[in-house]
């Protein structure tokens, strides 16, 4: 008699987690050599030097830091010092704005490309050239032309999340079963009605796949973009703590980025299940 699969998987996950923490703890437990030094000199130096403490934080330091952030995630101590919760909200707001704009652009253009082989051919070279450009390469150009750093960051999110949605929409629309379109034609449905009642539901799973890929990319890019322009957001938080060489805070931020990314992905997965249909 065996335990259910989910339970066994959970046990293995837990063991891996505990193993990781133990290895991490042992790895950072070691204290480096400490030299004898003048107490007055020692007062001017950091704990890495005076106590031989590892510059890498251990799981204990990390836990304490997380607890500290959880206690007051929304503090605001001036322009350049805001709580991690506020920073995450800034980032999420930016990602959603850029993402929704991209969605608004990708859906109609994707439909156009999918329904018209002529437009598909005509737009293809542009898409092929623009698609592989790293979104951050747009940043200097965006800053120079848009002349606003927060809109530039949103633009970068837009440009990186538009391609998977555009291509998936086009593909989904182009591969709608011929028979369904023929049925619609025999019933003398208007083109708009055909698009909304036949093509959209048929292509929805493919479109949702594109949207899921896009939100993942957008979340990846926002961190880098915010590190570049600074000001607010989780990317700025990472940069600011790097500036202070606070590895603990950087690791807390990494954890938060991972958690939020997972949540966004799960949200899209839910939506995907809603529109899925059996062929």
């Amino acid at each position, binding site marked *: 008699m065996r335990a259910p699969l989910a339970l066994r998987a959970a046990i293995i996950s837990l063991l891996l987690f505990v193993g990781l923490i133990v290895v991490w703890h042992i790895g950072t437990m070691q204290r480096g050599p400490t030299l004898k030094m003048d107490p*007055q000199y020692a007062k001017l130096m*950091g704990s*890495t030097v005076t106590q031989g403490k590892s510059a890498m934080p251990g799981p204990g330091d990390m836990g304490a830091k997380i607890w500290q952030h959880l206690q007051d995630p929304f503090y605001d101590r001036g322009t350049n010092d805001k709580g991690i919760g506020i920073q995450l909200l800034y980032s999420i707001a930016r990602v959603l704005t850029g993402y929704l704009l991209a969605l608004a652009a990708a859906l109609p253009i994707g439909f156009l490309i999918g329904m018209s082989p002529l437009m598909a051919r005509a737009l293809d070279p542009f898409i092929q050239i623009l698609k592989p450009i790293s979104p951050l390469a747009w940043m200097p150009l965006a800053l*120079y032309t848009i002349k606003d750093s927060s809109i530039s960051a949103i633009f970068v999110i837009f440009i990186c999340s538009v391609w998977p949605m555009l291509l998936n929409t086009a593909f989904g629309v182009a591969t709608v079963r011929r028979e369904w379109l023929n049925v619609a034609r025999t019933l003398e449905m208007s083109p708009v009605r055909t698009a909304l009642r036949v093509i959209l539901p048929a292509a929805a799973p493919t479109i949702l796949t594109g949207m899921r890929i896009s939100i993942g990319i957008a979340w990846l890019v926002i961190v880098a973009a915010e590190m570049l322009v600074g000001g607010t957001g989780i990317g700025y938080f990472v940069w*600011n703590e790097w500036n*202070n060489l606070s590895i603990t805070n950087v690791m807390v931020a990494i954890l938060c980025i991972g958690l939020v990314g997972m949540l966004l992905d799960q949200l899209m997965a839910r939506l995907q299940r809603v529109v899925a249909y059996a062929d």
Partner: protein
Amino acid sequence: MSLQNPLNATLALASNTCSCGQHSSQTVHDAALVSAEQRLTRVVESAVVRAIFPDDRSRRALLRKVGAATALAAISQFFPLRSATEVFAQTAAPEKQDLKVGFIPITCATPIIMAHPMGFYSKHKINVEVVKTAGWAVIRDKTLNKEYDAAHMLSPMPIAITLGVGSNPIPYTMPAVENINGQAITLSIRHKDKIDPKAWKGFKFAVPFDYSMHNYLLRYFLAEHGLDPDTDVQIRAIPPPEMVANLRADNIDGFLAPDPVNQRAVYDGVAFIHTLSKQIWDRHPCCAFAASKEFVTTNPNTYAALLKSIIEATAFATKAENRKQIAEAIAPANYLNQPVTVVEQVLTGTFADGLGNVRSVPDRIDFDPFPWESFAVWIMTQMKRWGQIKGEVDYGSVAKQVFLATDTTRLMEEAGLKAPKATSKTFAVMGKEFDPTKPEEYVASFAIKRAS
């Protein structure tokens, strides 16, 4: 020193020490200037006196002969000093209340930063938001975008921007230098036996930006020790926050960087301070307070209030006894985001050098707002020397265009007064005299250079 009494016969306006002779150091001397009003008067007097006597020697000769009171009376005859001071001190309502000023989290920005927590901005009825920014290119673009009304820049940047080197040419103004000295050559602790620069062949160095005093000072220092900075070593631009991480990872062997980066590397036990930049050129300029020309002309009162706040903050920062308090004010996460000990070591000049010694250099960093034109000329000679600018350079007029756009000058012109003529001073870099009137000869005099 623009905060010194310009009507003191024994004092060289360009001097390096306290030359009135009554104080042990310049810092103590400046501490003697009590009220802000008095300081303001001094700044204006300095500008005027410098204008009348472009040559420091003739000013001193005259003062010795007739005495300060007579000289002042004589100058007042044809130059209304009092009203010039009043123009500067007037409290016209600023056109724009809410301002944004960008800064890079280094101690060079001390006057800009500290004016916020210590209330210098609010005293002049402006509501300034100081915004931490990730890099020099971003700060430049955000100033051009008008997201920032003014910003902290490296003093060669306004010149480079005006010349169109590394960007489109845009007229820029640099009304004040923020700090003098305050940089250092820091080497990885692995090289603690290689004190002699001749052993540095093959090293990888980092500087914050191509158009920075750091780049020029490091190149100068290496060349003076017989190393060609382009072929014998590698110099790359790395943003200050990444420097310590790179040094720890052995990606670089050392850097000439702004503080607190140097002290932070020592604090973390990965480096030692080899040479303070004051040992290369004492009282060299470093960072600057810059603003777009448009902001200056459209918001004169706001701009005056902003600059007054910064001049006052600078004057406050020159006093040794205030430095501890300043360190505490600017160290938190909202500003520099560094341990207070690190910032305090930088500002007080009592610091650990990374080799086990505690050193005391009170003027390791100092603050002086006056943008001497000869500084601009020197920067351009180095741009020429290392091939950043090619062909004929109109040193004088560019220096005037960028550095002479000082607030003092502007306010005086507004009041219908004759603005001071070009002000220059000579100085020595590693013992070699620099004459701002002969820049081409200066460039030609170096053995190691790129310029043809």
